[in-house]
């Protein structure tokens, strides 16, 4: 009877761990599968295209040129290899400037009627560039569809502009986002680690039990505060403080994000590190003291090396919290997608971008897929950090 019971318990444990593993794997597969669809796509929204008059010699443009044309930074066809003629920009909603409401009656349900009207406009204006629907183009169009370079990996990773909803072409350059994430998170860990470790050592070894009994629950309480509250605290207190201290034109900076994240990562680091330091066996500690080592020498030479794996875990968890945190960062870093040169300027991180934009992106669309690729990158960054820290701590152990 007892054996059967044990079997059942073992079976349940096995089953639940299998289910967990499979779930994690499925989530990862889902993440990568959704993201993979982005590459090789045209950067115009699905079902839309950019066209010019048939007699225009220009037939190929890249995403950046198109953006500059529609932003009126390029206003002559000569600048993109065409004739010397000014550029007329046309968007679908502009059709109402060329025709009256009555002439256009029923266009929002009858696509081919709309398409033929647009075609007429393109025919009449040889210097036009039009952003139009590619559905139901007339059989004999007087327009020519522009070939646009497809989204590729190099542009995605090295691109410096993040305009995911820009029309007609979206620009997905994630370099500023990756740099923003790395700068903010690593500075956060640099701030949090010394404070966290010092606090952990103090609480584990130096503080008297009374102080410890007050401090420990207080610190644990800190991790229960919702991140929006930290964000608000950052926006109202830290941001103006930084602005005054460093005399900055703007207070929402990477540094503000780092400080807020450091405060948020502290409870995790302190609790985990303290527990692992306290787990040093009393016999080891007493042996060290008996050999004549001072209290400090015992802490530094015996207890910390003994607890190194636990401290490593604390660091990993802390970094995880810092890299993945969305809300608080969203509120204090300013979210300008520019490549950071100093920590004292606005930055945009990957999690903040995902949190801010996923809600509006149509499921399966380009923007949606780009955000999933960002998720994949976040996953890879965390994985690399975890593996590196684990490798280092393993190496240390084998050296001992």
């Amino acid at each position, binding site marked *: 009877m007892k054996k059967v019971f044990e079997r059942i318990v073992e079976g349940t444990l096995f089953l639940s761990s299998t289910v967990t593993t499979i779930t994690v794997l499925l989530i990862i597969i889902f993440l990568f599968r959704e993201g993979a669809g982005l590459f090789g796509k045209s950067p115009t*929204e699905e*079902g*839309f295209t950019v066209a010019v008059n048939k007699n225009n010699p220009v037939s190929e443009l890249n995403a950046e040129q198109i*953006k500059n044309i*529609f*932003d*009126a930074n390029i206003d002559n066809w000569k600048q993109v290899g065409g004739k010397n003629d000014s550029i007329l920009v046309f*968007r*679908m*909603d502009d059709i109402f400037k060329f025709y009256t409401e009555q002439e256009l009656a029923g266009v*929002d*349900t009858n*696509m081919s009627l709309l398409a033929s009207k647009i075609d007429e406009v393109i025919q009449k204006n040889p210097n036009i560039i039009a952003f139009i*629907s590619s559905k139901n183009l007339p059989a004999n169009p007087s327009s020519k569809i522009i070939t646009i370079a497809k989204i590729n990996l190099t542009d995605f990773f090295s691109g410096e*502009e*993040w*305009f*995911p*909803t*820009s029309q007609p072409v979206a620009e997905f350059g994630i370099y*500023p986002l990756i740099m923003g994430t790395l700068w903010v998170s690593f500075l956060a860990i640099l701030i949090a680690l010394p404070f966290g470790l010092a606090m952990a050592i103090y609480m584990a070894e130096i503080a008297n039990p009374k102080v410890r009994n007050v401090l420990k629950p207080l610190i644990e309480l800190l991790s229960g505060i919702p991140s929006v509250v930290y964000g608000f605290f950052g*926006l*109202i207190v830290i*941001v*103006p403080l930084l*602005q005054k201290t460093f005399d900055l*034109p*703007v*207070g*929402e900076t990477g540094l503000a994000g780092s400080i807020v994240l450091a405060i948020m990562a502290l409870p995790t680091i302190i609790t985990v590190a303290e527990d692992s330091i306290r787990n040093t066996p009393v016999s080891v500690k007493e042996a060290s003291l008996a050999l004549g080592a001072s209290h400090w020498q015992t802490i530094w030479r015996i207890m910390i090396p003994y607890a190194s794996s636990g401290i490593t875990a604390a660091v990993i968890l802390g970094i995880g919290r810092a890299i993945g945190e969305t809300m608080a960062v*969203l*509120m204090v870093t*300013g*979210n*300008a*997608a*520019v490549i950071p040169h100093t920590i004292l300027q*606005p930055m*945009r991180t990957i999690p903040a971008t995902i949190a*801010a*934009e996923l*809600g*509006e*992106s*149509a*499921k399966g669309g380009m923007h949606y897929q780009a955000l999933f690729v960002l998720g994949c990158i976040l996953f890879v960054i965390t994985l690399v950090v975890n593996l590196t820290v684990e490798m280092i701590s393993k190496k240390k152990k084998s050296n001992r």
Partner: protein
Amino acid sequence: MKRIFIAIALVVSVMNSGMAQKIKGSDTVLPLAQKEAEVFMKHNAGKKVTVTGGGSGVGIAALIDKTTEIGMSSRPMKLSEKMKVNESGGSSIETIIAKDALAVIVNPSNKVSQLTREQLEGIYTSKITNWKEVGGDDMPIVLYGRESSSGTYDFFKEHVLANKNYSSKMLNMPATGAIVQSVSQTKGAIGYVGLAYIETTVKAVKVSYNKGKTFVEPSVVTAKNKTYPIVRPLFFYYLTSSSKAVKPLVDFILSPEGQKIVSDEGYIDLK
């Protein structure tokens, strides 16, 4: 007995929430829609309306995915969105429920008190980067704006920037309240918010749409007599298939009582 009672209460509440009308979308319309829904529910016991924000784009996307009955929006539906609704086999009905003026705000310490549309376009596309270029002190301009999911983001881009892209130096804030807070504590800041959000901690700028001939201050009065140029309608969108279910609520908002709430909340009523 007690248990049965709790069970019944649970079932009833579940059934109720299943019948709740969902409104989702623009953060600009959110406070208004919440107030309207509150009063509407007081009048019609048993009806339930839940209102959530997220941005105009979010609301319309949810309407297309059929996860909300009403999408609220501070910009008209784009042609591409209309086509998506048509593709999914429905058609949407548009109702203007109120109007809102968009004010450009700067820090109270800023000397600049009026700007033309062209200057605003230059500022938000980073062609003008210092306040001295528009008659202010020598300090860099710090741009504040909303996230791209916001209808205010799109409206401002369309009507003030003439459809050009914002500078990538613009700070994207997650909420309108955050823009007000940041502008109030940043000397060189400029931002745009709905009229209802203006506080004494920021200064609203007079705007000119005729190349500097006349500058108009944003207020309910100037917005109503159409002298203030940056006024936008606020929309409710719903599918034709659910028009019967949402009609009582929409009718209530358009009624004199509903419109009184509109002006009480700091928006511009339709009269």
